[in-house]
């Protein structure tokens, strides 16, 4: 069989997923105060730089080396970009490497929404690199790399656990250790420019097709099913979120539409190539409603998860990973590289659900603990710590971390070149 059609789709998907990180930057960026806009963009764009390099040098090998060993970690088989270029398969290993690179980039980028407005940029640089090696690569190995979770029988089509629970758990650890933004929750910190957020949501939705349908690895029927499920879950979650918002707050908001869609995309991620029929609507709608309710928790529990990474990614990831235990459909499954398996509603009993629960909580536990250790270590070691000073927080990350401002629209120019 020719591979060109599959290559075309996975190349396209890689580009789409890479584009999600700028999308995420703007999705988040619109929600922060204007003085922190560039700080937010930078934390995300920088991940495209640093993680690409780390992934090529060692990260991919740690995640995908020793493939299918049922173990805890890969090896150095592909380190330093070795052995990726195999002409006979059209360089398939290199294709897998770069496609997975885009996942490695966006996963820690998700955390930036939680820690918005208060982390030193240099601390972020260290955290990003260490987290990718110590948390992302191992967890990716467990499932995507054929490690212990895959062997156990847990399913994760495109990263409900590897990406979303993982990043969400890290986000929770980070906001606890970093502490609240100055003034939160008394001071109002409304979004400075929601159109950015909507633009970002549009890019995310667009790119997520590559994320989920690309995870089939081929341009086959499973890819089509994953594509369909992705779109339908996003749609249903938008409606779910808006419905409850309208009931509770009296208005359907654009931020709600964007947030709901993202919640649905998160929840369908682990399920995309494994469910069929009306299932994506049910999973999406559940995610929309549950995530809306989950983000209200932070006010009760008093942790400043600034842009609701816990509420959307951790909770949404859990919703999807666990519901897969109910909705999995072996007719679709069978197309992929995985064993065909059914869920509770599809006559497969509770077996899959149990595996999903174990995988979800193991991911949560490892990521939370390890992220906390990294951050506490950095706090102890970095001369200026991990958080900006109060004065810097007042002035904003743009000026203090990057010596730039986002907007200079006025007519009044008074600036001197040194």
């Amino acid at each position, binding site marked *: 069989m020719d591979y060109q059609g599959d290559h075309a789709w996975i190349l396209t998907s890689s580009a789409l997923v890479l584009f999600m990180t700028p999308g995420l930057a703007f999705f988040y960026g619109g929600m922060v105060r204007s003085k922190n806009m560039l700080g937010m963009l930078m934390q995300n764009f920088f991940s495209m730089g640093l993680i690409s390099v780390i992934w090529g040098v060692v990260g991919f090998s740690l995640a995908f080396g020793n493939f299918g060993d049922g173990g805890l970690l890969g090896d150095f088989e592909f380190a330093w970009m070795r052995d990726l270029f195999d002409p006979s398969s059209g360089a398939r290993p290199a294709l897998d490497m770069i496609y997975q690179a885009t996942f490695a980039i966006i996963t820690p980028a998700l955390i930036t929404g939680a820690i918005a407005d208060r982390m030193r940029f240099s601390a972020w640089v260290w955290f990003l690199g260490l987290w990718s090696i110590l948390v992302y690569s191992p967890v990716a190995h467990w499932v995507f790399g054929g490690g212990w979770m895959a062997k156990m029988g847990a399913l994760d089509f495109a990263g409900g656990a590897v990406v979303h629970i993982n990043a969400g758990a890290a986000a929770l650890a980070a906001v606890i250790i970093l502490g609240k933004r100055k003034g939160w929750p008394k001071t109002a910190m*409304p979004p400075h420019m929601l159109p950015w957020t909507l633009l970002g949501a549009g890019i995310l939705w667009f790119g997520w097709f590559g994320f989920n349908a690309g995870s089939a690895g081929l341009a086959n029927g499973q890819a089509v099913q994953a594509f369909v499920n992705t779109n339908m879950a996003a749609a249903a979650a938008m409606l779910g979120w808006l419905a409850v918002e309208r009931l509770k707050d009296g208005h359907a*908001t654009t931020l709600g539409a964007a947030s709901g869609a993202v919640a649905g995309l998160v929840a369908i991620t682990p399920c995309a190539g494994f469910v069929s029929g009306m299932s994506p609507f049910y999973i999406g709608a559940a995610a929309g409603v549950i995530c809306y309710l989950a983000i209200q928790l932070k006010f009760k529990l008093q942790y400043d998860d600034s842009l609701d990474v816990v509420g959307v990614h951790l909770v949404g990831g859990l919703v999807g990973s666990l519901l897969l235990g109910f909705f999995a459909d072996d007719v679709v499954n069978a197309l992929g590289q995985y064993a065909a398996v059914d869920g509770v509603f599809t006559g497969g009993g509770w077996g899959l659900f149990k595996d999903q629960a174990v995988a979800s909580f193991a991911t949560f536990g490892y990521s939370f603990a390890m992220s906390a250790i990294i951050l506490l270590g950095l706090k102890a070691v970095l001369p200026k710590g991990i958080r900006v000073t109060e004065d810097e927080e007042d002035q904003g990350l743009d000026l203090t971390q990057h010596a730039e401002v986002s907007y200079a629209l006025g007519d009044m120019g008074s600036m001197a070149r040194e």
Partner: protein
Amino acid sequence: MKLVTAIIKPHKLDDVKASLGEVGVAGMTVSEVRGFGRQRGHTETYRGAEYTVDFVPKVRVEVVVDDGDAAKVVEAIAGAARTDKIGDGKVWVTPVESITRIRTGEAGADAL
């Protein structure tokens, strides 16, 4: 010389400008401001958190006029800016001791 300062509703600016033109005022300076008063502000909601904003957008109009014209100008502005709804704003008059046209150095009424 007097400085007439008016705080008006933004969408009444064109009417005020026209009305000032009718009483012979040839220049003015305007700026965007926010007002607080009897007029209620609004509420915004973001992800379930509700915020109240008490300030409402207004426009400030400033006109320097000859002493004798002040009353007429106040009237022109007040007439044009009135909508009879709360929040129509205020006009006040303050004394100006001197005024100069930068381009020519002319002073007093010639500077207007």
